[in-house]
């Protein structure tokens, strides 16, 4: 069953929904990256909640005009309009009042959503709400989706993706370094507006699949996930699109296998699984990598201190140091230094002395700044320089009586 779902053999509609969701996931991941790099991730939460009154008003309007209130295009147009108004309110509040952006986000989100709920109850009391299924927009519902709706969603996902491809250059530039972009003659405010337009497009297309409460996850989680793997903004964008698309595809396919698996939450949980994997296993920025780095560092410090202690024939009590020295073959199990151990200890001591000279010498200021007690002196000084230092240290000399 799961295999059939993943290979898109569960019927025409399920396939179309999965494709639409994948396209949506890619667009959301890419768009979300721009938001995330601009540190405005939660703006999308306000935008998505602000769609609700538009959906309801569009439904009421279409029903009043005698049409079918469920026409998806009409509902989506309404949602885009009210999301736009919400966004405008948000920008107005942050620009013209003393409110910070987070407060403005919360205000727009709660007020628009509250008003939307009022309208929802109005629709319910009019007795036309039952068949409208507008609640489906809250959490998404792909079960029993009409063929036309699936086409609209797949088409919308495709169109959004195209738009992103067209706009990617200035947006990457602004997301990466807004000041530099401005100096290059790019209008940052216009790019920000385009970015918000894309967020709106993603939200509107995603309403039917993921629902307005959870669409924000599709915009934030893939971007955060991708950030773990690379430091280059182009790759972040690509990886975010990839992980968003993958999560959406897996989620949509899995949710088609059983009746009680709502699409939106499954997609979100899939994307969180990818995030959790990245958090732990990503190279460099991941938790596992950080722990390994810490352990490696700890070992180097212990080994170094152990060798210095050996060189000066001080006793070593620290168990970890002893174990590391033993494992490297520098000491015997009874704690006495081996031949190799004595050689390395002597080198460690001499390096320490060399560093002392380097650090005392003004002309080696830059190299001295790199001293941290662990760095091999060969990595910062040339052979000739080291030879010069050794000459200054001098050779062992006879002790005169």
């Amino acid at each position: 069953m799961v295999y059939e779902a993943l290979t898109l053999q569960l019927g025409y509609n399920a396939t179309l929904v999965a494709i639409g969701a994948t396209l949506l996931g890619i667009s959301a991941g890419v768009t979300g990256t721009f938001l995330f790099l601009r540190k405005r991730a939660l703006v999308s939460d306000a935008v998505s909640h602000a769609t609700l009154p538009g959906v309801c008003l569009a439904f009421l309007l279409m029903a009043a005009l005698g049409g079918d209130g469920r026409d998806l295009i009409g509902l989506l147009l309404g949602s885009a309009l009210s999301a736009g108004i919400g966004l405008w309110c948000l920008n107005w509040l942050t620009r013209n009042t003393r409110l910070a952006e987070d407060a403005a986000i919360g205000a727009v989100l709660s007020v628009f959503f509250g008003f939307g709920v009022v309208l929802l109850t109005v629709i319910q009391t009019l007795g036309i709400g039952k068949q409208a299924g507008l609640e489906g927009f809250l959490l998404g519902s792909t079960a029993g989706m009409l063929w036309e709706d699936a086409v609209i969603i797949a088409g919308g996902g495709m169109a959004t993706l195209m738009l992103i491809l067209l706009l990617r250059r200035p947006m990457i530039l602004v997301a990466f370094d807004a000041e530099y972009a401005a100096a290059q003659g790019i209008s940052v405010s216009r790019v920000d507006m385009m970015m918000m337009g894309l967020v709106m497009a993603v939200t509107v297309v995603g309403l039917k699949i993921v629902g307005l409460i959870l669409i924000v996850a599709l915009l934030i989680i893939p971007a955060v996930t991708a950030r773990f793997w690379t430091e280059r903004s182009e790759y972040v964008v690509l990886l975010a699109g990839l992980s968003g698309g993958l999560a959406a595809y897996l989620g949509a396919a899995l949710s088609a296998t059983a009746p009680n698996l709502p699409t939106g939450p499954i997609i979100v949980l899939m994307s969180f699984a990818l995030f959790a994997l990245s958090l732990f296993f990503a190279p460099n920025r991941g938790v596992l990598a950080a722990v390994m780095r810490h352990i490696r560092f700890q070992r180097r410090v212990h080994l170094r201190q152990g060798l210095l202690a050996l060189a000066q024939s001080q006793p070593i009590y620290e168990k970890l140091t002893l174990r590391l020295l033993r494992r490297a073959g520098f000491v015997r199990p009874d704690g006495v230094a081996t031949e190799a151990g004595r050689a390395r200890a002597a080198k460690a001591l001499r390096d320490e002395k060399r560093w002392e000279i380097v650090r005392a010498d003004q002309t080696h200021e830059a190299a001295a700044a790199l001293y941290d007690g662990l760095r091999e002196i060969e990595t910062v000084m040339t052979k000739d320089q080291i030879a010069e230092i050794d000459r200054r240290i001098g050779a062992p000399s006879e002790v005169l009586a």
Partner: protein
Amino acid sequence: MSGEEFVPLSLTPILIGTFAAIACALPGNFLLLRRQALIGDAISHVVLPGIVVAFLLTGAISAWPMMLGAAGASVVAVILIEAIRRLGRIEPGAAMGVVFTTMFAGGVLLLEQTDTSNVHLDVEHALYGNLESLIWLDAVGWSSLLDAQALAHLPVELPRIAATLVCVAMFIGVFWRALKISTFDEGFARTMGIRVNALGMALVIVAAIAAVAAFDAVGSIIVIAMFICPPAAARMMTNRLEAQVAWSIVFATISAVVGYVLAGYGPLWLGAFDAVSAAGMIATVSGIILALAAKFGPCRSRTGAPMTA
């Protein structure tokens, strides 16, 4: 509107709504000034899985396990947000977004997977609450307020939210000076020996308690709206914290009362028959108040502050 009708049907919902609004608005003032306004949003999303898990464990809809579940979920969320922020070096907004959406999605999934057909537990209820149903059937009029027997049958949400309000107010009152100093000048607060981090955590926990108690009675929309809108509107009215808190209480009360009345009686005045969602209307009214304050409030602009904020 006579007492026989008003007291049993409207008095308790209005009081519960008002208490919930004030209980959220009080800590909201500080959260707003500390740029943590969206904590309320996050908490109100994460209580859903907490409530569902509590229901799964106890198998019944009862208040205390659910409150505990919700509180537990908020604590888990706060810890997760902090952990992700530190471990992954991610900006707090994004970390918050990751955590609350995932937990909410988990809650929805759990809810769909369990059989809740014989109990009243669904996502809509969690979002809108059920303010209208908190009526006081034993009341017959204003005289019932002095009638011990009728008072014994008050909806249990009323004493609970009243107690929460008292706790929140006491916390704010006791730690007023420390809160004020640490909100405006954290470094100075630290030099005075105030434990800034512990205090910040305590504030978030108090906010979570207020949110969970209010959520139980009125749903999450009011919680989010009341954490932000009244304090934000109050911020436009004054530069002094004392006055701001006072204004926010006034605004929260107006929102709750006017919102409830508009939702309950507004449609009747317009010739319709049924009431609309009170929770939604309260949020809407608070939004209108905020809009008015943002347009005409005496301290609405950022005077003396850098415009880049």
